[in-house]
């Protein structure tokens, strides 16, 4: 039921969200999370996103299935782009729909935390001066954000 896509082209958050709710009267809350490419103070020309084809879809499907086990969701969308993405452009979209707002919000947060730390994507910086910058380093804070959910599940 969930929509999972890995694609080079842009997505439209609004149409993905309205596809989830169209004709339904049992959904009380829809959350969309859109992750965008930042210019990082103007030094960045683009981010290049590399991914592991095949595993990317499978891993996101596992994360979505996990979210569907944890929260009563009436719809989930997870779309992740790859390739060169300019500042201001979309990178990732998560949409969650549920009867209850806390389920929709927590599931969106969970999905983003897990996509950050488990989905096989890597970002390389391309700088404005034409040079190829560094690979973006994984952040400790993202690991900790994902670990919260392990604790939450253990503790009830």
């Amino acid at each position, binding site marked *: 039921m969930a929509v999972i896509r890995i694609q080079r082209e842009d997505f439209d958050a609004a149409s993905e969200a309205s596809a989830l709710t169209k004709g339904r009267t049992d959904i009380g809350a829809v959350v969309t999370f859109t992750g965008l490419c930042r210019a990082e103070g103007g030094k960045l020309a683009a981010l290049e996103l590399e991914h592991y084809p095949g*595993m990317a879809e499978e*891993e996101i499907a596992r994360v979505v299935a996990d979210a569907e086990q944890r929260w009563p969701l009436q719809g989930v969308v997870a779309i992740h782009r790859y390739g060169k993405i300019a500042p201001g452009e979309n990178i990732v979209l998560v949409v969650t729909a549920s009867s209850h707002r806390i389920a929709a919000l927590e599931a969106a947060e969970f999905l983003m935390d897990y996509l*950050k730390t488990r*989905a096989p*994507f890597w970002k390389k910086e391309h700088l404005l001066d034409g040079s190829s910058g560094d690979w973006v380093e994984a952040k400790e804070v993202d690991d900790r954000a994902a670990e919260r959910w392990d604790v939450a599940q253990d503790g009830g």
Partner: protein
Amino acid sequence: MKAVYFAWVRERIGKTGEEILPPDDVKTVGQLIRWLSAKGEEYAYAFEKPDVIRAALDRTHVKHDVDIAGAREIAFFPPMTGG
């Protein structure tokens, strides 16, 4: 088995993947990393900090102590930075 490399692991090794034939005493992901590191300078550079390297066996995340027996594809890459 097939080994595939991503991000700076791929750049350092200089290829996206290859067929590998590790000897029988290479049983775990960690042992495979050590064996690959000995294949040449570029591999030694890619795997210089083994603790940082993440691995997936047949497209599923695994830790370094997992047995590689029976796997068709093993992937090595840095910590992920998607999202």
